[in-house]
């Protein structure tokens, strides 16, 4: 098992390095001279020259990359021009908000998807199955931010059930504030999770080992939970990993719609303010989060599927 974990971690390191190179190069995409673009209207010849030197823009590219990496290593994530403060200082608070939102949406997705998948699999091909599968297919066509706005209109403005924006103070407040955004973020994930869990449940229900479990005389409940559900969870676990990264992507938009002070809204604000340093760093933070989640899913998977345990 340890060998498997070491192997997986070993594979992630080179990918992480390549990601830093990709993100480092992103800023080169900026048309014209990045330094003047970054300073924007505050650019003066002196400040542009100073910035160029600070980033070593006049030196060959790989040296610039070395500077970039050294900064990363020392925790100097660059300073936000808009707030004139180091990015690193604002990061923890923002990250915890986005983390809360993503986990909250994951919990909601599982809460929605699992029961529906069980019902759909139990009533295979009969009307409940078809209604659930059809209703789960529709949300994939709806843009998340629009659904967010609709929820906002109905539940906040009209019914006044939930606050329209913000994060609130304290856990209970967070739950209330982030319910609509988390729901918006989760419906697309829930529909994919429900459909995949349903089809894997249907597949497992038809396997020989479930037949044999029933032939042993086990009660239906025991067969369902010990044999069927556990084996059906396997594909769903990998899916959770993949869809979580989509959920993180989605948070960028949802935080903007609901004005939530997370990494996502910060990134959009920085983009509109052409605060390129922050955009670059936040993209790296999102990538870091995604890689950790992918790694976690890979390490969790063998716990469910012993066949992988031999590493």
């Amino acid at each position, binding site marked *: 098992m340890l060998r498997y974990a070491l192997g997986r971690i070993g594979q992630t390191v080179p990918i992480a390095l390549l990601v830093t190179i990709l993100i480092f190069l992103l800023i080169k995409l900026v048309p014209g001279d990045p330094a003047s673009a970054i300073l924007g209207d505050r650019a003066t010849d002196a400040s542009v020259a100073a910035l160029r030197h600070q980033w070593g823009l006049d030196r060959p590219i790989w040296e610039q990359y070395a500077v970039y990496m050294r900064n990363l290593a020392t925790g100097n994530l660059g300073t936000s021009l808009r707030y004139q403060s180091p990015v690193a200082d604002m990061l923890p608070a923002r990250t915890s908000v986005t983390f809360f939102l993503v986990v909250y949406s994951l919990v909601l997705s599982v809460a929605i998807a699992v029961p529906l998948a069980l019902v759909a699999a139990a009533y295979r091909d009969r009307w409940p199955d078809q209604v659930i599968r059809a209703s789960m297919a529709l949300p994939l066509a709806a843009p998340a931010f629009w659904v967010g706005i609709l929820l906002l209109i109905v539940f906040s403005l009209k019914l006044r059930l939930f606050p329209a924006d913000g994060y609130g103070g304290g856990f209970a407040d967070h739950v209330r504030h982030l319910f609509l955004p988390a729901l918006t973020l989760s419906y697309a994930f829930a529909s994919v999770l429900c459909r995949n869990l349903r089809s894997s449940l249907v597949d497992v229900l038809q396997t020989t080992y479930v037949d044999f479990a029933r032939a042993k005389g086990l009660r239906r409940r025991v067969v369902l939970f010990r044999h069927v559900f556990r084996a059906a969870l396997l594909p769903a676990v990998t899916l959770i990993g993949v869809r979580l990264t989509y959920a993180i992507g989605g948070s960028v938009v949802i935080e903007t719609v609901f004005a939530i002070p997370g990494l996502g809204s910060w990134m959009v604000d920085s983009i509109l303010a052409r605060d390129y340093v922050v955009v*670059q760093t936040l993209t790296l933070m999102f990538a870091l989060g995604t890689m950790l989640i992918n790694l976690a899913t890979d390490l969790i998977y063998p716990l469910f599927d012993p066949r992988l345990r031999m590493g």
Partner: protein
Amino acid sequence: MTTLAGELAPPRAARTRVPLGLAAGAAMLVALLGGSALAPVLTSYDPYAQNLNAMLLPPSAAHWFGTDNYGRDVFTRVLYGAAIDLRIAVLAVVFPFVFGVVAGAVAGYLGGWADAAVMRAVDVITAVPFMVLVIAIVAFLGPGELNILVAIGVVDWIVFARLVRGEVLRDKNLEYVTALRALGFSRARIVLRHLLPNALPPAAVFLASDIVLVILTTSTLGFLGLGVRPPAPEWGLMISEGRTFIYTGWWAAAMPGFACMYAGIAFILLGDGLADLLRVRGQ
């Protein structure tokens, strides 16, 4: 993407010659594109002309989708907007589909360093959430239709590469490939004349659902102000502009969303119908 049509149609519906999903999806698309092309004839309103004494009028016989905060007819702008969003969506998937399929086939069949190169690239791009990477690229390149196409093109190919690579890896070990190699067929012939034709149908089906994803991405970029410049009637932009007036005129923000969903469902149905049509005969 399992099938919507398959889910709607009763399981034992006899498959008509042209699958139900394909017909429905195609009909919806034709209606939308037709409406968009014939918009100047269908509505007398000008999508750009502002009419200050018709601001934020609710949906009515005169204005089916009501008017926005500049008094422009929302229904007309939705029709004109369809051309923008669909054009971007279809253009944006061309490169990812072609490049992804070729990269996947090469990685799948050749294996070794080719497979490692393609898969490392896929791992790197997968490491950054899709929407974050697209938004970052557009942010750096600057908004506009061309930059959207580039951003989506650079990121979206990995989905097709992974799908086709999986299909080729699975088929490569099937006995018919062994038999063809024994018959002295060249590697190129086996990949181009046998492995690809078997991998294309699932890729084509996925293409339809990928277009849905691209429509959502385009409208999201528009919503974030990174898409097409105002006053273009792009759906995402319209929702963004309408958002500030949801207290007094919710329809300005809501209606374009329905249009977006309509286009999405059309492509999902197309994809399902395609899946039925391309399913191997006799299987």
